[in-house]
């Protein structure tokens, strides 16, 4: 085995996210150690796995059988790894196998055989397989059409669970309580999956998972088991998950473990697999009858004999049964690394993906050393002496119109993992880690007055965890909450503990205050209110300083002072995979108040802290993991030890070999300060983890901590709108007119002065919408009334919105105010589409040289005035050769990995260098961007299909969940590859157009003419088709959806006649009936690629008409970079 091809998972999407950067990176490392050349296919340019650091050859191309076949032809690898890139890689691998590509090219599938993967993915066959080996599955049947689905559900009995075959993250699945719901779910699932499995819905069963590792010699272990706090019916990715299981006794634990191992053996797994079970919490009720005769009480039936030798023997039968009852089902098996395996890996410290890759090469488990302890084996099962709680991060409110309900398919976009020595501690940590201003388990932030708690408990949403605390506070019984939620009372009791302690605190304080007041003096001393024992107890239960402050009527900082006076400081514990049994050389740490020693000594001035990005979310994702990881690597070159703080189990930055020290901890001020005070490091880097660490700048500086890079005072000058605006005026830099208003009258007056449209940013938001473009006064007043608060406390920021302007970005690194490197990139879409959703091009294609010069000049001015040291990013608007600044971020931006990888300029290296005296790299290695003879395009990945009801339109608010970047000889080639990589398809059946205003139809005319050359039918709404038919483009008219006449748009979508839809809307035109939303949603629901931006649509049409898929060049990253003209 000399060369191995690894398939990545592509862009981050709901159901397939950062966890596969973790698994792919570990696989690459694992193979490299064995001297194997690695070739990786993954268009996700923001990942660490696609770094020079790790992999030998990277192809930034779509992970599908078409492209991968071509790469195989070119690279001639000896083996292929399919199980490290999620469902995307697995599906691609199965296709290659079925097409005979692997056989033909003599590419060996390493690890679990493809036949087993196929078996485990076909739900019906797999259920039969499990029955054959004696394992129970819920009563079920597979259906390929609605009629069969109804038949099966009638025999299984409602409620039923519907799951789509061959789908990632439970997409398209759901619970149906009646025929109507069944029809809806099945129709949707069958639109993208060939079959559905209908099974008995196991109401309120526990959901338990095992992570199994097996080698080819049949050594088999379970690395971790996990218990979902939420019962069956809620996808494990949507559940609060606890490791290890808490409510299972030994018999249940071992029975399920045995079943998991039996499955792994029967599937001939080589590497890793994940098995999910449903476990009945009250099997006695069900099994009583069947078991009464089987279980014989031991003491009664076994015969006793006094010690009298020679006495006659009387024997009676004693059954071996121990009367242990269990009622469980196998729910799902993933014959690959999964999100759960990433979580298990972080929860235990066991490098699952690294080991799985070694096993795939044919190694024996006993041949691999434990990389974490460096003294023991990987052939063991980790023992934890802590508990972890994973909580998903949802951003459902960020999607206009999306349904809040959570269930059997994934909607969450990220997750966090809290570690503690009490459930309460780990749980409250995790809640704060979500970075949504929840101060703990009892946060009321999401609960609205007047909302029914019963309904919040019964219908799972992201609010449910807080509704439980509220219900407990109101005295609802554990039993009732258990009935409504299906959450095991064990967990509810833990939450009650938190609620009760809080209540005690409040009442004690209230009592004390009343007493003091009677005596005529107010409580001044919190010390009186809080004894040392009491404060320690609250800290052990995971309360934050701020929360305790809230409870006793003071600030978090005062509690912090008191805490330190009492010497209540958290202990630093390490995660060593074996609960302290051996002395491990681990770097994996967490803090706890349930301890009183430290496992490590501070690093002091040798250490530099790097603040990571926290949970993945809309707007902050794997790109900030890339920046964090690279920062840690470069610190080595400055002879500093890296101390990473992060709390996201899907990241590479939290891997065992990335940093010198990893604190799997909260990115709250309190925790960062605790760690800083313990480590007493050289300094802390806040500018590589996105906005979260950046937000801590001020408070950390106030503690006198050494913040490396730009002074937080200057960060504030860039972030405070008024101060920043003043600065721009001083520097004579143009900016869109803006004003902060505190009432509606002011708002209207400003808008009429500058003219519509305007961009509005409320500082307090009622619904999910944070920003909005308003086109007229009605629009403005309606928005304020509906979605925002405007008051002195919560002012609105209104700025003039410039239409048809280009958006341009400058990413740069500066040292002491002097720019060291800068790169300009260009958006395809005009301003109005969030930069995170925009298609970005390098090098710039359509920007005047004079504009570029202006941008560089402005960059220099700002960097110099703010004495910037480190990374920064400026966003510009350009129109008619005029340039305006809209935003400055004095931190690394989302595009840092894209820019660094495309240009070869390592912006992170330069940033870290700027924090220290000397430079570690020679300046001549910096490429000149102007000499690039290729084009790279970064495209956004959307996950609208997963978000029922969400409006898939591009606007000022970010909605994408991930990104890819592809290279090409020209813009069209790079863009086409990028679009194909985010799920686009070259249309073969038909194209639907709906273009809105006349001017759009005119603008698109050229594109429409190009489409005609494709010789596939064009469909359009009545007016659009009339326009085009008049202009020489043959278009078939369709009735609108609401017209309910045939042939209409919906019909056309449903019948699969269209495989590209363009829907352009003019938001300022208000229609009585809005068909556009229905069109867009129908396109997404029928898995039809959709464009809602005219410039992007035009470019796509140009690309598909000028390029042929068959002849697209297949070139690796290196081949592009080396082609740079020097």
């Amino acid at each position, binding site marked *: 085995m000399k060369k191995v091809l690894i398939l990545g998972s592509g862009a981050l999407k709901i159901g397939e996210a950062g966890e596969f950067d973790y698994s792919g990176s570990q696989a690459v490392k694992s193979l490299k150690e064995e001297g194997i050349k690695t070739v990786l296919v993954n268009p996700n340019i923001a990942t660490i796995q696609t770094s020079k650091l790790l992999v030998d050859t990277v192809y930034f191309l779509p992970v599908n059988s078409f492209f991968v076949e071509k790469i195989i032809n070119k690279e001639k690898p000896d083996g292929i790894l399919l199980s490290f890139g999620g469902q995307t890689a697995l599906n691609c691998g199965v296709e290659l196998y079925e097409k005979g590509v692997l056989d033909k090219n003599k590419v060996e599938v390493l690890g679990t055989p493809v036949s087993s993967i196929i078996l485990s993915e076909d739900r019906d066959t797999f259920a039969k397989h499990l029955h054959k080996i004696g394992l129970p599955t819920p009563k079920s049947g597979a259906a390929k059409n609605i009629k069969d689905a109804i038949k099966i559900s009638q025999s299984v009995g409602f409620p039923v669970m519907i799951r789509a075959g061959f789908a990632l993250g439970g997409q398209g699945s759901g619970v149906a309580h009646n025929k109507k719901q069944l029809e809806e779910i099945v129709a949707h699932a069958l639109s993208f999956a060939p079959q559905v499995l209908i099974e008995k819905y196991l109401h309120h069963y526990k959901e338990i998972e095992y992570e199994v590792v097996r080698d080819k010699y*049949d*050594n088999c*272990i379970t690395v971790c088991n996990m218990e979902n706090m939420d019962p069956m019916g809620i996808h494990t990715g949507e559940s609060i998950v606890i490791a290890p299981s*808490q*409510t*299972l*006794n*030994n*018999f249940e*634990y*071992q029975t399920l*473990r*045995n079943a998991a191992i039996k499955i792994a053996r029967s599937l001939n797994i080589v590497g890793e697999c994940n098995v999910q079970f449903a476990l009945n*919490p*009250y*099997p006695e009720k069900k099994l009583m009858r069947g078991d009464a005769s089987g279980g014989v*009480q*031991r*003491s009664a039936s*076994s*015969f*006793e*004999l*006094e*010690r009298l030798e*020679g006495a*006659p*023997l009387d*024997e009676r*039968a*004693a*059954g071996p049964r*121990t*009367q*242990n009852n269990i009622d469980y089902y196998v729910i799902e098996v993933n014959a690959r690394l999964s999100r759960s395996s990433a979580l298990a890996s972080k929860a235990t410290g066991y490098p699952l993906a690294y080991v799985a890759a070694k096993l795939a090469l044919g190694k*024996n488990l*006993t041949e691999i050393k434990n990389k974490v302890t460096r003294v*023991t084996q990987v*052939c*063991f*099962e980790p*023992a*934890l*002496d802590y*508990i972890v709680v994973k909580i998903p991060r949802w951003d459902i409110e960020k999607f206009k119109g999306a349904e809040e309900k959570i269930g059997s398919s994934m909607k969450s976009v990220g997750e966090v993992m809290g570690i503690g*020595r*009490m459930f309460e501690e780990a749980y409250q940590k995790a809640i704060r880690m979500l970075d949504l201003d929840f101060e703990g388990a009892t946060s009321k932030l999401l609960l609205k007055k007047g909302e029914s708690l019963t309904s919040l408990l019964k219908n799972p949403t992201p609010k449910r965890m807080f509704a439980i605390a509220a219900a407990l506070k109101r005295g609802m019984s554990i039993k009732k909450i258990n009935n409504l939620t299906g959450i095991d*009372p*064990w967990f509810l*009791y833990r939450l009650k503990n938190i609620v009760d302690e809080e209540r005690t605190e409040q009442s004690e304080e209230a009592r004390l205050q009343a007493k003091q007041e009677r005596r005529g003096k107010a409580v001044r001393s919190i010390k009186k209110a809080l004894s040392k024992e009491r404060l320690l107890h609250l800290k*052990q239960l995971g309360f934050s300083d701020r929360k305790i402050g809230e409870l006793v009527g003071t600030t978090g900082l005062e509690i912090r002072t008191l805490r330190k006076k009492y010497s209540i400081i958290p202990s630093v514990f390490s995660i060593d995979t*074996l*609960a*302290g*049994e*051996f*002395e491990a050389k681990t770097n994996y740490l967490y803090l706890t108040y*349930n*301890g*009183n020693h430290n496992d490590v000594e501070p690093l002091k001035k040798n250490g530099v802290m790097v603040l990571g990005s926290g949970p993945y979310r809309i707007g902050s994702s794997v790109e900030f993991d890339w920046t964090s990881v690279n920062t840690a690597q470069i610190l080595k070159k400055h002879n500093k030890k890296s101390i990473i703080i992060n709390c996201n189990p899907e990241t590479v930055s939290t891997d065992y070999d990335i940093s010198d020290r990893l604190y799997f901890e909260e990115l709250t001020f309190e925790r960062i300060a605790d760690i800083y005070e313990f480590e007493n490091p050289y300094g802390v880097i806040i500018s590589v983890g996105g906005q979260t660490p950046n937000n801590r700048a001020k408070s950390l500086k106030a503690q006198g901590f050494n913040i490396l890079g730009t002074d937080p005072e200057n960060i504030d000058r860039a972030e405070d709108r008024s101060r920043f605006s003043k600065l721009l005026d001083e520097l004579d830099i143009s900016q869109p007119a803006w004003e902060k208003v505190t009432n509606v009258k002011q708002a209207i007056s400003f808008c009429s002065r500058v003219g519509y449209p305007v961009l509005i940013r409320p500082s307090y938001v009622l619904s999910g919408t944070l920003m909005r473009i308003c086109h007229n006064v009605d629009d403005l007043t309606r928005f304020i009334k509906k979605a925002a608060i405007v008051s002195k406390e919560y002012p609105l920021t209104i700025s003039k919105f410039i239409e048809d302007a280009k958006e341009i970005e400058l990413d740069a690194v500066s040292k002491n105010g002097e720019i060291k490197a800068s790169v300009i990139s260009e958006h395809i879409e005009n301003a109005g589409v969030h930069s995170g959703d925009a298609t970005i091009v390098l090098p710039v294609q359509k920007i005047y040289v004079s504009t570029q010069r202006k941008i560089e000049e402005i960059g220099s001015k700002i960097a110099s005035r703010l004495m910037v040291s480190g990374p920064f990013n400026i966003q510009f608007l350009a129109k008619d050769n005029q340039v305006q600044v809209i935003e400055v971020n004095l931190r690394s931006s989302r595009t840092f990995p894209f820019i660094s990888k495309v240009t070869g300029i390592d912006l992170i290296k330069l940033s870290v260098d700027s924090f220290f005296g000397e430079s570690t790299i020679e300046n001549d290695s910096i490429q000149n961007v102007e000499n690039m003879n290729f084009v790279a395009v970064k495209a956004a990945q959307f996950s609208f299909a997963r978000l029922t009801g969400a409006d898939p339109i591009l606007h000022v608010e970010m909605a994408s969940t991930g990104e890819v970047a592809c290279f090409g000889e020209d813009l069209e080639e790079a863009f086409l590859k990028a679009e194909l990589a985010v799920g686009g398809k070259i249309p073969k059946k038909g194209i639907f157009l709906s273009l809105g205003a006349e001017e759009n139809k005119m603008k698109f005319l050229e594109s429409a003419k190009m489409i005609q050359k494709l010789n596939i039918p064009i469909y359009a709404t009545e007016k659009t088709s009339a326009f085009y038919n008049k202009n020489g483009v043959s278009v078939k008219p369709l009735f609108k959806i609401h017209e309910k006449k045939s042939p209409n748009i919906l019909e056309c979508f449903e019948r699969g006649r269209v495989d590209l839809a363009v829907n352009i809307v003019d938001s300022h035109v208000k229609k009585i009936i809005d068909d556009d939303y229905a069109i867009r949603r129908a396109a997404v629901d029928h898995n039809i690629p959709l464009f809602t931006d005219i410039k992007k649509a035009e470019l796509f049409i140009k690309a598909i008409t000028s390029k042929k898929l068959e002849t697209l060049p297949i070139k690796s990253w290196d081949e592009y970079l080396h082609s740079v003209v020097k």
Partner: protein
Amino acid sequence: MAKIILEDGSIFEGQSFGASISTAGEVVFSTGMVGYPEALTDPSYLGQILILTYPLIGNYGVPEKKLWESDSLKISGLIVSNYIDTPSHFQSKRTLGEWLKDEKIPGLEIKDTRFLTQKIRAKGTMLGKIILDKDVAFYNPDKDNLVEKVSTKKVYVHTSGVGYVHTSGKKQKTVLLIDCGAKKNIERCLVKRGARVITVPWDYDPFNLQHPSPLNNFDAIIISNGPGDPKMAEKTINTISKALNKKIPILGVCLGHQLLTLAAGGDTKKLKFGHRSQNQPCILKNSNRCYITTQNHGFTVHKIPKGFKTWFENANDGSNEGIIHESLPIMSVQFHPESTPGPNDTEWVFDYFLQKL
């Protein structure tokens, strides 16, 4: 304030959740994460104050007695980090705290059990005492014959269904289980496999010709697990020596492994802090196989007797985990093939042995 005092003078304060009775013993730790009702009733823990390193203990309460590994708590005292008194499990009949109180065993919640564990790891197993009501003297259980204390006083016979025919078609085999503190699951594992099991006390002599008994008709001997220093159980060692002379098939488990070793001329010694966990990897010699085992022992075999070879070896520290006779069906394992608690991956050892009969 309740506290535990170690023989090196260190003191750890904690909250009591068991009986308010002071106790003394040897302080040991176990890293198993599941199965405390089974562990606490394991007779091998007699005389020991047990630290459970998994911090949350009490989660599933206490089931009926028939699900335990012996009919009472065997530990001297229990140390946990976070005692949970709200079990939700359907089999729970009472809380762990109630059980400890009922059986007069102290339980202490000490937050930093990890520190305590590290101390024992670094300095080795220590004597200690839990002080609740009054001070007590240190107590070294190794100096006592603990086997005598936990062994059955009566003889029991277990068999599976009447008229049972072994699946192999062979006649039902009778095995003599010498109870040195046997976990119940050894009997269950044997009966489940069709054997007739006669459980006898540690000092029972089946070769005593002066007292012929129907009990003396058996096909093999199983020597169980049990507490303390194997060298204290001299009578059992003598019985095994006789059996060895008669070439009777023997299977030793845990303490039984050590006793077989001693009877056959090998030697044992005390480990620094023992193996007490459910994740010990054991390599089957001359094979590619490694098994995850449950272990609970403070002594180890360091000299393999003549005529025997290494059967299993610990993958972490290379210590002996099993011996097997070069030609006869005589073998023993240091780990617990009957598990409970822990993985039952090595239950096949019983099959392997019974097939040899």
